[in-house]
């Protein structure tokens, strides 16, 4: 843990930062001291104490220690600060902490790396897992390794087993005579949920009301769901800022960034540390709330329903298969991680004439019940199909495309340039529709200053008029009081009427909208909701009318 004065590049400004994390945070900042050509030192370490932090609870404990609310007993110092008993601790350590306490009020920013959701703790103390294994488990040999494995795997010891364990470990004469029993009996390892870590961050923020808080992510991409969750929460709530080192790392090859020829993702190369230090400094002095890398993995497998006897080839975003004489074919695509939620554009290209006439492909996200009609654009004789779809964060995604083929064409079918891309700065909320047999949901994202979501209303000559925007998260039997706020306009001078289906009946027309934006508030008590879910329904409009939604919320 460090308290550092960090200087802006021109040396005119200073930020005093408490730096709590691992070598991935401290070493790059230390490197700023050695920046070539800098007119002044990049950083000045005001106060330093041995020991690093992995979890948000390690960081919280550091703040308690600094505030003199918690004192680490001498015997546990090696498991929290990493110092061995041979180092001079005790009185010297207390004096160091007191000096740190005197600096707390002057700290502008707490810069905290949360590198794990694992927490290792006893009833009173959070223990550093690296120090615990080094100073306690390893010297204890197989007996303590078996104990530690059981703790990590969530196992527990009976009273008799614990007494037996204590007796055997006591014979090892480890350096923890007074705390041996409490470590062995109380030590737990938990893997916290994203929300539990977020709650701990919010708690930490309350402990430092006069300072900013910046959370720094672990660059290991296996933490992708956790990282994207924190990035989202940081952007939404703005109670803490968030820095994902991958926003810089993505511009380099792994061997340039990490030790062990790019394989040791726990440690940056010394040559990269300076660049990371500069990157962290730039973020500190900026007004950026959050830096973050959007990851949408390419599709990795494809199959068809009914199955193609020769299989399906997926290569360079192209899909090749033999339809086997079936008029309707569903192509199922599987991709890995999506670490953002929002509207995505899905598109592909076909040679003209491959599909049956007057037919547009339909897209379905496998986790939703909704079918989305794709738009067709013909360019140089080829058909380009695209649509937008709302997707949330997930470690694996499946999309299905239903095609109606023109069977008189060649037997092989090639879908080209199959792509899924996130739409930046698009309408920020999901909107889903109630499907009708002859009308598909057909949204369109309009990227204006305030992004809009445009929906073409169903053709009433083909529709039974019962569709609309579904109200999410209401189950059969629920009786919520719905408060809906909707700001929208339509594209037709003839206007559009709005009513609500409350799970039993249609209300009368609640409001009418025209071509100017209008805010509509709907309050309706839902009584024992049926299988027919509540929805916002549109009436009294002419063919081809579209609505454009500016804002939408439901409580």
């Amino acid at each position, binding site marked *: 843990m460090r308290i550092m004065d960090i200087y802006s590049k021109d040396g005119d400004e200073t930020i005093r930062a408490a730096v709590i994390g691992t070598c991935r945070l401290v070493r790059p900042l230390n490197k700023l001291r050695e920046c070539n050509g800098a007119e002044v030192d990049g950083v000045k370490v005001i106060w330093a104490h041995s020991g690093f932090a992995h979890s948000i609870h390690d960081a919280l404990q550091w703040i308690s220690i600094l505030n003199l609310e918690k004192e680490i007993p001498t015997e546990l110092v090696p498991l929290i600060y990493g110092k061995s008993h041979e180092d001079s601790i005790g009185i010297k350590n207390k004096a160091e902490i007191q000096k740190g306490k005197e600096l707390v009020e002057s700290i502008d920013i707490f810069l905290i790396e949360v590198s*794990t959701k*694992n927490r*290792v703790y006893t009833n009173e103390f959070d223990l550093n*897992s*690296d120090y615990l*294994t080094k100073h306690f*488990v*390893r010297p204890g*040999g*197989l007996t303590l*390794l078996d104990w*530690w*494995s059981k703790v*990590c*795997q969530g196992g527990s010891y009976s009273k008799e087993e614990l007494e037996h364990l204590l007796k055997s470990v006591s014979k090892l004469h480890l350096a923890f005579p007074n705390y041996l029993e409490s470590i062995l009996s109380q030590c737990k*390892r938990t893997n916290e949920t994203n929300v539990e870590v977020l709650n701990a961050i919010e708690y930490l923020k309350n402990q430092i009301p006069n300072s900013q808080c910046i959370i720094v992510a672990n660059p290991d991409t*296996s933490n992708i769901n956790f990282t994207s969750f924190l990035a989202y929460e940081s952007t939404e709530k703005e109670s803490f800022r968030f820095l994902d080192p991958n926003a810089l790392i993505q511009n380099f090859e792994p061997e340039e960034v990490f*030790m*062990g*020829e790019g*394989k*040791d*993702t*726990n*440690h940056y190369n010394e040559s990269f540390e300076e660049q990371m230090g500069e990157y962290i400094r730039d973020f500190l002095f900026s007004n950026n709330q959050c830096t973050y890398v959007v990851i949408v993995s390419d599709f990795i497998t494809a199959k068809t329903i009914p199955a193609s006897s020769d299989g399906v080839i997926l290569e360079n975003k192209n899909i090749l298969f033999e339809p086997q004489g079936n008029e309707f074919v569903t192509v199922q695509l599987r991709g890995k991680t999506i670490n953002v939620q929002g509207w995505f554009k899905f598109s592909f290209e076909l040679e003209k004439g491959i599909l049956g006439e007057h037919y547009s492909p339909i897209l379905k996200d496998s986790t939703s019940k909704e079918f989305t009609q794709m738009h067709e654009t013909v360019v140089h004789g080829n058909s380009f199909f695209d649509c937008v779809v709302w997707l949330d964060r997930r470690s694996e995604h499946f999309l299905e495309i239903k095609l109606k083929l023109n069977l008189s064409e060649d037997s092989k079918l090639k879908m080209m340039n199959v792509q899924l891309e996130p739409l930046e700065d698009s309408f920020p909320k999901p909107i889903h529709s109630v499907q009708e047999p002859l009308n598909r949901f057909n949204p369109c994202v309009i990227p204006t200053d305030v992004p809009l979501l445009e929906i073409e209303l169903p053709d009433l000559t083909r529709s039974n008029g019962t569709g609309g925007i579904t109200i999410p998260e209401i189950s059969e039997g629920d009786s919520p009081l719905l408060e809906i706020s909707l700001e929208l306009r339509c594209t037709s001078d003839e206007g559009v009427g709005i009513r609500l289906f409350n799970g039993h009946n249609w209300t009368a027309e609640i409001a009418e909208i025209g071509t100017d934006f209008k805010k509509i508030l709907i309050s309706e008590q839902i009584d024992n909701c049926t299988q027919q879910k509540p929805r916002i329904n549109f009436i009294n409009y002419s063919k081809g009318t579209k609505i454009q939604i500016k804002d939408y919320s439901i409580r």
Partner: protein
Amino acid sequence: MNRQEIKEIIEKAIRTETEYEGDIDGKMTANEIDGWDSLAHVRIIFRIDHHLGTQVDLNATYATNTITDLIELFVNEAD
């Protein structure tokens, strides 16, 4: 101890610490084995060290990619 014996010790340590019951292939990485997180990694290395009488540098183990790489590291260490 020969390479095959070392390989068996390593596979056993991985299974003990991760409770993984599927097939283990030399080309696999830690990410492909359920339960192999940072804490399990340290325990796996300690357990192998204990059985082989070695004491490898943990940082060197982080720089291994596949299980075969890990086996090679311990084969060299046990020489």
